[in-house]
């Protein structure tokens, strides 16, 4: 077992890779009553073309399979539903699917051990029938319809479509009503058997646990066998260039929404350092204290600070600046000018130091709540990152490095603008 300690947040991570291939991470929180467990697999909506272990043929699955599978995992062969069973135990159970992973979780203040039995059992034992797969299509269709009416989701999806030509990140995580109609129990089993191998999974627990004890307990409940061989994900050739510069659609919203993106190249080395630096740069560009935000706020173009994100995983990386504005083109114009200005004169040192302090505070406050901590460690793990690295590499981010990145990443030919206007 590996023990990694972070002196800044005064927390410890116990990391163990079991012989059967499963990785377990424990972050003990002795003072809390709430216990949180999350079990994820490195399988998300972008993984739609692959060669299963010990096979040779390429499999291509309909859009939305990872998410559909997540919905169906709760169904049990004895006719019960694990979500109901866990809820009956007084624990909060849930699951979610992202672009690059799927996760099952529960949070308990009581009955943790009983819930753990059910939890470990259902994730390892899928039960799909023609009937239960068919029934789910109506429910997921309503989930898709709900997102269709959400302008913020539409503006986000269009931004991805503007940036990515081939990479399946440009399709909706849930798929479409049409694509899910093609999903059968055979498709689900194929996806499950490929991606839910222990080697491809990680489990994180956070709460009042003794690391050795909880790891032993989890180990004793693993019934799945180790699978030999690797999953081969079929890598899609994605050009460095964007697809198109701009897309504007109309929906019933009172104030337009925008997402401004910069397509970037995923870097294998120094990704954490780059992420930290980009967060600082983004905040210096259009964060609350920035010149640009002050100007746009004063003239009524912005009423709140846009959200600033750097998203990356297998095969992709991009920046997104998203928010609401009466005049999104004004934001785009201001941003371009500000980037140009910083490129010419360099980032201001005083601002850099102050914003860096702010980012430090943001990282420390991530360690407040057990659920947040566990989800963060899991998501970062699938990106090849140990979450503590953000606190450790923080000091290595220099003004010089930030200036270099600014010139590399913020280029107009990689910039896209997605807008939803009112009708």
């Amino acid at each position, binding site marked *: 077992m590996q023990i990694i300690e972070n002196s*800044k*947040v*005064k927390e410890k991570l116990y990391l163990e890779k079991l012989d059967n291939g499963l990785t377990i991470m424990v972050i003990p*929180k002795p*003072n*809390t*009553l709430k216990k949180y467990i999350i079990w994820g697999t490195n399988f998300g909506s972008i993984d739609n073309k692959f060669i299963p272990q010990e096979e040779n043929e390429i499999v291509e699955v309909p859009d939305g399979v990872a998410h559909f599978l997540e919905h169906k995992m709760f169904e049990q062969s004895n006719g019960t539903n694990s*979500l*109901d069973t866990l*809820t*009956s*135990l*007084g*624990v*909060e159970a849930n699951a979610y699917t992202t672009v690059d992973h799927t996760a099952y979780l529960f949070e*308990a*203040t*009581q009955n943790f051990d009983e819930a753990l039995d059910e939890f470990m059992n259902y994730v390892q034992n899928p039960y799909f029938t023609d009937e239960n797969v068919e*029934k*789910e*299509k*109506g*429910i*997921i269709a*309503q989930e898709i*319809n*709900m997102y*269709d*009416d*959400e*302008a913020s989701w539409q503006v986000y999806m269009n931004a991805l479509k503007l940036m990515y030509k081939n990479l399946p990140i440009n399709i909706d995580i849930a798929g479409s009503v049409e694509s899910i109609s093609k999903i059968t129990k055979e498709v689900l089993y194929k996806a499950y058997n490929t991606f839910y191998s222990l080697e491809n999974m990680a489990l994180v627990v956070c709460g009042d646990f003794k690391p050795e004890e909880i790891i032993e307990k989890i180990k004793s409940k693993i019934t799945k066998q180790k699978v030999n061989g690797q999953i081969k994900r079929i890598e899609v050739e994605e050009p460095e260039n964007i697809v198109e510069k701009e897309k504007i659609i109309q*929906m*019933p*919203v*009172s*104030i337009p929404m925008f997402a401004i993106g910069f397509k970037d190249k995923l870097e294998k080395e120094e990704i954490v350092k780059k992420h930290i630096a980009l967060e600082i740069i983004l905040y210096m560009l259009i*964060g*609350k*204290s920035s010149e640009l935000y*002050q100007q746009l*706020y*004063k003239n*009524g173009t912005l*009423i709140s600070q846009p959200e600033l994100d750097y998203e990356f995983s297998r095969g992709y990386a991009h920046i997104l600046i998203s928010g*609401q504005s*009466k005049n999104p083109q004004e934001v785009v114009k201001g941003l371009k000018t500000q980037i140009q200005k910083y490129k010419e004169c360099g980032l201001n040192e005083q601002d850099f130091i*102050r*914003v860096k*302090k*702010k980012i*430090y*505070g*943001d990282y*420390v*406050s991530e*360690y*407040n*709540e*057990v659920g947040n901590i566990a989800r963060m460690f899991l998501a970062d793990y699938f990106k090849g990152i140990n979450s503590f690295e953000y606190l450790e590499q923080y000091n290595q981010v220099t003004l010089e490095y930030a200036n270099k990145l600014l010139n590399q990443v913020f280029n107009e030919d990689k910039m896209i603008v997605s807008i939803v206007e009112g*009708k």
Partner: protein
Amino acid sequence: MNYKKIEIKEGISVHEIETEQFKTNLLALFITVPLKKENVTKEALIPAVLRRGTSKHKTLEEISKKLEEMYGASFNCGIEKTGDNHVIKVYLETINDAFLPEKENLLKDAIDTLLEIILEPLVENNEFKKEYVESEKSNLKTIIEGKKDNKAQYALEKCIEEMYKDEPYGLYKYGSIEELEKINSKELYEYYQELIKKCKIDIFVSGKDIENAKNIIQENENIKKLQPRKKDYIIDSSKKTNMDEQIKTIEENMELTQGKLVLGLDIVDGKEEEKYTALIYNAILGGTANSKLFQNVREKASLAYTAGSSYLRQKNNIFIKCGIEIKNYEKALQIIKEQLETMKNGDFSEDDIQNAKSIMISTIKAIPDEQDTGITYYFGQEFSHEMVEFEEYINRVNKVNKEDIVKLANKIKINTIYFLK
């Protein structure tokens, strides 16, 4: 976790929540006043103007920089309805001194900064700075107009407005454009002064090693200037209803793929002690994944992705919410009504009751692990005639039995059916 309430002056209280498990200290300041049509818009505007500038930090930029220097202290303000009261809520979260890279006393700085923003605004010629008021009026107008952007929330708001027509609780928390247009900076400043002079003020400090907080607050110059006050606010806001009221049905058109159905339910002749029963009733009806609504509308009929209900304790109402295909309106409504009938007939098991209790108790037990929920819980106690600690709350939930639930079910009636399509 340790909770202590100290009234430092009549009408002004400091609430200390001493807790070990967070990296942050969370400060909150609440100003409470009864909901009134002529004042709600002003109350929504005031926090927005306050965060624009203080006498020491005159611009938003200066305030933002000050907060960033404090390792990114996050400042948030907003406005909420709590029963028939309007509450201005202001939060400041900072890193706890133990987790700073260098030794500093951030707690004092945080408290002083929060109080400076609320109690020491930038004033010019005995009024708020005109530019700030005009700019924030325009922002608030955008927010009011943006009400329909979140469809599910909008449908709920509209249902509440119908249920509480011409009553304080039917007011939109951000007010109205009509009222907004009448506001000027002089009048707004006068109203602000009146609030600060007369209203109930609660200051919460949650975090580790906060034993000094009360002294820091008491010695703060801005606090010293405040006078004791007879706090005027509404403790019990439960809705009064008759059994023979007609059901109101409202449909509204908007270009949507998915329709939003909301049912507002009344509890006729509801009593304070029945609130725990209502909580369990709601959990069985639509509060969990095991509930009747989730099971029957979603799992069995596949009509919805979201299907459930929530209990609004302050007003003693239950709201049922579903997102459905527009053509399935009648079908969904039929299933919902059947579930209400099964509740009346006592068609649920002891296990269902136990499960519901278990979920509710778990929520209470988790409060000490969530910094903001702790503050919300104790602030909520201010609107009840007695202080109920966690343990007592759990006892009362445990005492609820089937007979109570069936009795309550038979006092529940649909007030309004609202459908956004």
